């Protein structure tokens, strides 16, 4: 545990100094602030535009960071041959892989929190959604926190997939594969609904069902489309979605550890 903690801390320190990460996060923050400019031409829909675009930016930049930084994590260690130094010490390959997941996971949490704070600041400054007559709208803030928490869960799930594929693929291929699973994970719901609603072949119906169950469902983690709409989810629905994500994270990291422990350098 102590070793894992030291490795996580090291991954965190190393990654936080990464220029790509800083540049992406910087642009994320700038664009969240810039949503204010777009709201001026939105025909009095400032609230909606600022909230939708702000939450969208948090999601978009979280994803970009996960893919770009995540695929480099293992590859860089192998490329610079630092992995040999590490693995020659009493560090298991599983610990090494887990440290990458938790290290970048902590960074994603930090960056998401920073973007969230900027977003809340911009929203509070330009709309009445957060502070109304000097009183904080706890319900709205809670909704935003919940949406961002689920976004963070989807970043972590994507990160787990990136780490899984990075354990046996080159960075580009790993990024492409993780993105493919991410895309499929977003359309499984639609595919299943389409198969149920339309007269399609029984094979397609079974295929849609199979894909729905064997692929992580990213669509259920995406709550941002329901902000400001008065559509609420039950705690059971939310818990089920979160539990599903945690399940897939465990599966992906376990599989990644399995592949990585058999990898030959």
């Amino acid at each position, binding site marked *: 545990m102590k070793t894992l903690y030291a490795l996580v801390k090291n991954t965190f320190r190393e990654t936080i100094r990464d220029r790509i990460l800083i540049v992406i996060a910087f642009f994320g923050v700038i664009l969240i602030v810039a949503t204010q400019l777009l709201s001026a*031409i939105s025909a009095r829909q400032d609230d909606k535009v600022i909230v*939708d675009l702000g939450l969208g930016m948090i*999601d978009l930049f979280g994803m970009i960071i996960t893919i770009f930084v995540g695929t480099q994590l293992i590859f860089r260690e192998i490329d610079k041959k630092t992995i040999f130094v590490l693995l020659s010490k009493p560090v298991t390959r599983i610990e090494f892989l887990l440290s990458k997941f938790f290290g970048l996971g902590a960074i994603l949490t930090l960056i998401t929190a920073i973007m969230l704070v900027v977003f809340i600041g911009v929203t509070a400054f330009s709309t009445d959604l957060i502070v109304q007559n000097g009183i904080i709208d706890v319900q709205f803030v809670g909704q935003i926190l919940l949406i961002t928490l689920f976004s963070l869960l989807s970043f972590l799930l994507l990160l787990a997939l990136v780490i899984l594929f990075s354990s046996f693929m080159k960075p580009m291929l790993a990024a492409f594969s993780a993105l493919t699973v991410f895309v499929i994970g*977003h359309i499984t719901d639609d595919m299943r609904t389409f198969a149920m609603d339309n007269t399609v072949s029984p094979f397609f119906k079974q295929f849609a069902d199979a894909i729905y169950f064997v692929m992580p469902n990213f669509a259920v983690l*995406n709550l941002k489309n329901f902000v400001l*709409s*008065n*559509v609420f989810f039950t705690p059971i629905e939310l818990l089920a979605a979160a539990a599903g994500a945690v399940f897939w994270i465990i599966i992906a990291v376990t599989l990644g550890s399995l592949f990585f422990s058999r990898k030959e350098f």
Partner: protein
Amino acid sequence: MTVFLRLAAILLVLFSSVGVHRAQQIVWPVMEDHFYELGRNPGFVPRGNDLKPFLLGFDNFVADLFWLRAVQYAGGHAGVFEFEALPEYLELVTDLDPHFEFAYIFGALVLPLSQDTLDDVPTLLRKGIIANEKNNPQMLPELYINLGFYTYFYLNQYDEAAEIYETCAREIDGCPPFADKVAAFLRAKAGRFEIALNIWLERLLKNGGEGSEQEDEVALRKVEESAKMAAIDCAAGHYFEKNGSYPGVLTDLIGVGTLPCQAFASLQSQQLGLLEKLDNNWNLERISSSTLTSSFTYNPFVWDTETNRLKTQSW
């Protein structure tokens, strides 16, 4: 050699452009259902529902971007009042974000300004009602009110508009309290005085004397007006049965019996009871000169000889 190469390049470009044009002719009829026709031009913006799976959950994000485009488009064409592409933009926006309330309202306000897009309003508003009736009913009152107003103001379909307002008042939580009043007004405008009477009586009964004094006074006045107009309308029907023609002037109806009449048959016993209680001085059973003139500062009834229908000046 260079000359030949250049010539070949020019020919290649020419053939390519012909090829692209030909390909478009072949491909477009197959694909057009999946793309918007922006105004009169085939557009390369995919339909919302086709686009949705590829947005990876950024539906609202993209809907807002198209919304900004729609607003710019509407602003750019406001001078000439031509919004050919606006219905498609709004359809795309509302496909991507069915809860985007203002997109529907914006359409209801702007599209009727141009004859070309006038007919697109009900489709848009009804789409909003269907998309939100289950999981976002807070939006419904606004959509119903706008649909009712459009049907009344632009289509002059008073009965249909009244039905929309009545549905709103009866079935939709949060429907503004004026909805049933507007419905009654429209029913009277459509010559359906018995329904207007019904609505006003219902309002009085619902209030149970607990409405504000002013509200009850208005409701009472409207009950009286609707009851009298229903009675006069009924008397006109009797007059027609007897004489084979409608009266030339209202005073021809004096003395013609009104009840029994279909107009009052639809009233519930509670409503009839209330009407009888209020009816003491109105002489609804036989039209008298006082029915036509009493308690009104001006005579609110006008007999329209063109349509053979009773019209009102006060509503």
